[in-house]
């Protein structure tokens, strides 16, 4: 799975959590918690879906470094690689 594929799946997940948003229009370095109004419940759902889609369990201690699309895609690429 390359970065583009990962990004596509991440966008799908974000669209399910914030149905009124268009994640692909985000700046890759924008804080998505603020841009998409993601609260802690949404964030947990996001990581649950990441786990379902990629088989990766993201520990809570890594949450802090995962605030933008590019951070998330980079993290998942590294974990999948």
């Amino acid at each position, binding site marked *: 799975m390359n970065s583009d594929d990962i990004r596509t799946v991440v966008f799908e997940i974000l*669209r*399910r*959590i*914030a*149905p*009124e948003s*268009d994640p*692909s*229009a985000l700046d890759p370095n924008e804080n998505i918690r603020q841009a998409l*109004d993601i*609260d*802690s*419940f949404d964030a*947990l759902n996001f*990581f*649950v879906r990441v*786990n379902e889609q990629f088989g990766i*369990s*993201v*520990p*809570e*201690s890594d949450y802090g470094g995962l605030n933008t699309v590019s951070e998330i895609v980079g993290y998942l690429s590294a974990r999948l690689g």
Partner: protein
Amino acid sequence: MAEFRMPSLGSDMEAGTLIEWRVKPGDRVQRRDVIAVVETEKAAIEIEVYEDGIVEALLVQPGRKVAVGTVMAIIRTEAATEPPVAFEPSSRPEPVKKAAPEKKAAPEPPTIQAPPEAPRIKASPYARRLAAERGVDLRRVEGTGPAGAIGAADVQRTASPTTPEAKPAPPPPAGKPASDSRAAMRRAIAAAMARSKREIPHYYLQTRIDMRRTLDWLAAENLRRPIQERILPVVPLIRAVVLALGEVPELNGFWIDGSHRIAEAIHLGFVINLRQGGLIAPALLNAEEKRLDELMADLRDLITRARSGGLRSSEMTDATITVTSLGDLGVETVFGIIYPPQVALVGFGKIIDQPWCENGMIGVRPILTATLSADHRATDGHRGGLFLDALGRRLQEPSKL
């Protein structure tokens, strides 16, 4: 015979639109069965019946908007001498231990995938859920609501154009239509909050709580759990509120008709912000009977249903106290407004690392600012202070939560 009336699903509700009946004449119903779905200014709510009996007649057609108190159905009760159904907390039956409402699988939030250029589709949460369930593309649905917003009735019409009850719903007979559902939501909140500030002499107390023990305990706990079973930090806070209410029970209840009514069960209203704007505060029913895992499961279920439709009437009417957590937004202190006729609201802010003294030593600790807004007619600051003290104390022993 009992008259089943449009219930008041909160002090801010004046009317509701019947979306669908879940029963037909001749059906036997039991107390707490869902018999109808009603759309309010805030959400679509599943309406429960309050006594056992047999449905005699349904008097309101789906699609009609009727005022609170309007007779919607006749239920033939076993004991026909009982007084008609009442919905105000003042005359509700005793909150004796009631069976938790049946759980249903939390529905997936529907995905609305409009092309990027398309304007955003205006639709109620329940309409979105219904559309997802029935495979209806919202872009093909003609909205008859305010500003062309799509209501559940519109989705039903599109989903089953041949059934007789799917005739176009008549426009709501009520006065001016809301300019859109967001405005209606604002008006509902405005009515409740204005009443609160008009009637309730609030007093406010604040305390700072060292959260290190609870957060350390939670981090260790979550580390060994699969991600689906992780517990959010707000859950131990809710549990601590429940335990502290056990020590100061007079904060749990209502002020009605000049008297203070302490509730036995703790139905903890939890403020949930909605993506389309506004908020809703449905109750975690019988929170006093639940430990952390069950509270987390119930909270997940409640938030999911609040955002996609499917809250039940008891969840809308029964809250005995409200908790609001604004910590996700970076807010440090919440000065809450009580939701009438409740007598207290607990507010949580963001947990922030701050200098903290303990045993003569200064260290950096994650500090939570907790506040209590309480009705001075019902309680005094001394009791409120004991509550916040108990809350902080409970959070120092997380393994006992």
